[in-house]
């Protein structure tokens, strides 16, 4: 590239000796050479006009033999002219341009600084400082068709007062080249931005869909949306369909969360109710706009002046669709920025872009949720297995031989761990404690509650002495020591379970105290299904049906006394009598037609097999229940304990 100053010097040196025609010819050759340089600059690959504008200015000034000048670039969004290149190198503030001035600027090819047209007088006042420092004589508007792109300001012409006609033609060509460079730069910037956005859209989809933690997915969804839309803020709000509320799940910057705190139902930005009562007025606030996005399932946006949600940002929001067509939430971005830190309005293309991204975000959010649910299910499964092992260890492997009696038990876990328990415990002095219980809840907590109940029962039975020393006469009265001791034991167990669990954790419990010498069976019912006593003659009765308390662990002891005290009763067993203990898994077994097995069928089946031995009765009853169930699913444990007087 030629050095214009050298060429200029050469021109001056030969000024005296060369004819005007020769000088003109030499300058024309130089100008052609500089025009080539201008073209080279244009296609050099430098995309940023502001960066190459100094080269354009240098070539223009050198070509026209002008010492000072400036190139100003117009920014339509901020409606001002930025001084992007200036000789001498000084910093000048942008010059605002009014819309009517823009029209006037487009109408002129050249404007004399000393004689501005009437509509541009104020503009010239505003640019007076720049004009003064550079000593601007001539302004050249830069434009392509009707688009105003900027201006060239030219200082004092060397050794002449005005440009010659051919110089003006040359200047017109230079100005056109510079206009093309600005337009090209704008176009490349636009293409780069779109290329970036499309790449980010394509790149972000697989990336966010691979995130398995819901929190991480939410964070990345917001970050990617903010980056994609050149926004300065963003938020993910998820729907709570039960409360008909949008809840802020993640916000960027995170200080937004602090600005929009407090509680559900407050409608303050972090929680936004969109239920029936949440009406949407005609004049939309930001919150109204967000409500309408989730209720109508369509994108929305509002301007900064709407209100002050998220610090008064201009917001755009789109719904996040789920697989089933439901709306998982909304994705919000705010403050779309432009170069120079200005905040721009979101465009229709922005809406389409964010809407496309929100569809991918929906997949990502659902993926993360499904993964989380699968993890929790696996964890629950493992817990169930553990609980099952604990529970099975609490059920006796084999039942003891009781003189004069037969016992048989059946425990069949079905589906989730329910917490059934039975036991037959040898007491000192040859008495026996028979217990059956059904612990509420499922999983580990139920298993631990059952373990607590069993430990408490064994402890109580070993500690309470009177239980082992009762006699028939004493038992004739409800005030007898055995009755009292059994009722006290129930209260102790109630207290133990109440202290170890929540309100939902309780156990139905039936205890029988058997004295094989007297054949007296003293019983206490704490909310359990009444066992069935079938006499040898085929008559039957329910034990503990009329005298019974509430399940253990449901209420504290002082409340139990007020509701229904635990009371014992007794029955004398005869040869051939059978007691069928069971849990609700037996009577609540359902068949394919959704009928319950119920107590009536249990009575029929028990009477039908009463003459078998205990093991035979157990097997027959189990078969009867299974036959009834048929192909139907069963979710509760099935437990039977049979006591038969030989």
């Amino acid at each position: 590239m030629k050095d214009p100053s050298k060429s200029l010097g050469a021109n001056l040196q030969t000024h005296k000796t060369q004819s005007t025609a020769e000088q003109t010819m030499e300058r024309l050759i130089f100008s052609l050479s500089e025009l080539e340089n201008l073209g080279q600059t244009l296609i050099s690959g430098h995309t940023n006009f502001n960066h190459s504008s100094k080269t354009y200015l240098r070539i223009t000034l050198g070509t026209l033999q002008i010492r000072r000048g400036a190139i100003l670039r117009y920014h339509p969004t901020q409606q001002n002219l930025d001084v992007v290149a200036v000789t001498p190198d000084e910093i000048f503030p942008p010059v605002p341009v009014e819309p009517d001035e823009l029209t006037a600027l487009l109408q002129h090819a050249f404007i004399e600084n000393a004689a501005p047209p009437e509509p541009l007088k104020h503009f010239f006042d505003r640019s007076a400082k720049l004009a003064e420092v550079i000593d601007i004589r001539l302004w050249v508007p830069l434009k392509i068709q009707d688009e105003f792109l900027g201006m060239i300001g030219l200082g004092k012409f060397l050794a002449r007062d005005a440009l010659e006609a051919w110089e003006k033609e040359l200047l017109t060509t230079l100005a056109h080249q510079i206009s093309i460079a600005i337009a090209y730069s704008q176009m490349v910037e636009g293409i780069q931005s779109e290329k970036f956005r499309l790449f980010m859209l394509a790149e972000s989809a697989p990336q966010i869909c691979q995130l398995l933690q819901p929190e991480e997915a939410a964070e990345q969804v917001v970050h990617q949306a903010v980056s994609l839309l050149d926004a300065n803020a963003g938020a993910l709000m998820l729907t709570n369909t039960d409360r008909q509320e949008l809840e802020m799940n993640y916000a960027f910057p995170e200080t937004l969360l602090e600005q929009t705190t407090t509680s559900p139902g407050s409608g303050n930005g972090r929680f936004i109710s969109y239920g029936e009562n949440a009406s949407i007025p005609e004049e939309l606030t930001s919150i109204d706009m967000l409500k309408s996005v989730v209720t109508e399932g369509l994108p929305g946006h509002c301007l900064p002046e709407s209100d002050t949600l998220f610090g008064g940002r201009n917001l755009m929001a789109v719904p996040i669709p789920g697989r089933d067509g439901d709306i998982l939430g909304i994705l919000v971005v705010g403050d779309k920025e432009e170069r120079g830190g200005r905040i721009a309005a979101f465009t229709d293309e922005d809406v389409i872009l964010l809407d496309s991204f929100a569809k991918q975000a929906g997949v990502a959010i659902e993926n993360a949720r499904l993964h989380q649910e699968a993890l929790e299910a696996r964890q629950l499964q493992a817990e169930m297995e553990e609980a099952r092992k604990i529970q099975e260890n609490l059920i006796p492997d084999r039942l003891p031989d009781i003189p004069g009696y037969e016992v048989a038990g059946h425990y069949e876990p079905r589906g989730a761990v329910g917490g059934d328990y039975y036991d037959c415990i040898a007491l000192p002095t040859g008495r026996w404690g028979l217990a059956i219980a059904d612990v509420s809840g499922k999983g580990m907590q139920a298993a631990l509650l059952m373990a607590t109940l069993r430990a408490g029962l064994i402890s109580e039975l070993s500690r309470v002495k009177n239980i082992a020393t009762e006699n028939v006469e004493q038992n004739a009265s409800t005030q007898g020591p055995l009755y009292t001791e059994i009722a006290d034991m129930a209260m102790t167990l109630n207290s133990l379970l109440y202290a170890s669990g929540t309100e939902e954790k309780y156990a139905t419990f039936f205890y029988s105290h058997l004295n094989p010498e007297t054949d007296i069976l003293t019983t206490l019912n704490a909310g359990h299904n009444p066992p069935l006593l079938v006499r040898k003659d085929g008559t039957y009765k329910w034990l503990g049906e009329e005298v019974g308390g509430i399940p253990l662990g449901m209420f504290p002891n002082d409340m139990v006394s007020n509701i229904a005290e635990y009371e014992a009763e007794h029955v004398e067993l005869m040869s051939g009598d059978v007691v069928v203990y069971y849990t609700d898994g037996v009577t609540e077994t359902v068949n394919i037609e959704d009928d319950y097995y119920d107590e009536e069928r249990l009575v029929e089946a028990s009477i039908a097999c009463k003459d078998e031995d205990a093991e035979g009765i157990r097997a027959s009853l189990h078969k009867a229940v299974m036959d009834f169930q048929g192909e139907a699913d069963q979710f509760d444990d099935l437990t039977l304990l049979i006591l038969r007087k030989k």
Partner: protein
Amino acid sequence: MLNKFDIQIREGQEHAVIETAGYLNDALGEKLSEKARELIQNGHTQLVINLEKTTLINSIGISILIEIIEALEEREGTLNFCGLSATQERTFKMMALAKYAGIFPDEESAIANL
């Protein structure tokens, strides 16, 4: 990390490292551009931009990085990036930044390859 932005400069004898932290948008980008301009004017034409603490970049941030590359190219300087995430690295390749600037995993190797 993303909510705050910050720029740290580490000047060596023949090179300088600019480390950014936060969202590389217009605000942080302009600061970065200003620092880069100062360093270039002071004769540092061997630059490393460490983006390890910048996990989020928008299109304006990208355009500012392109400008820095162009400014250095004019001075026949060199720019290397380091600390990029996998996505950032792919973005830089796609946006042709990687054509004019090196990409290295860490600051040490980025400096060594200036």
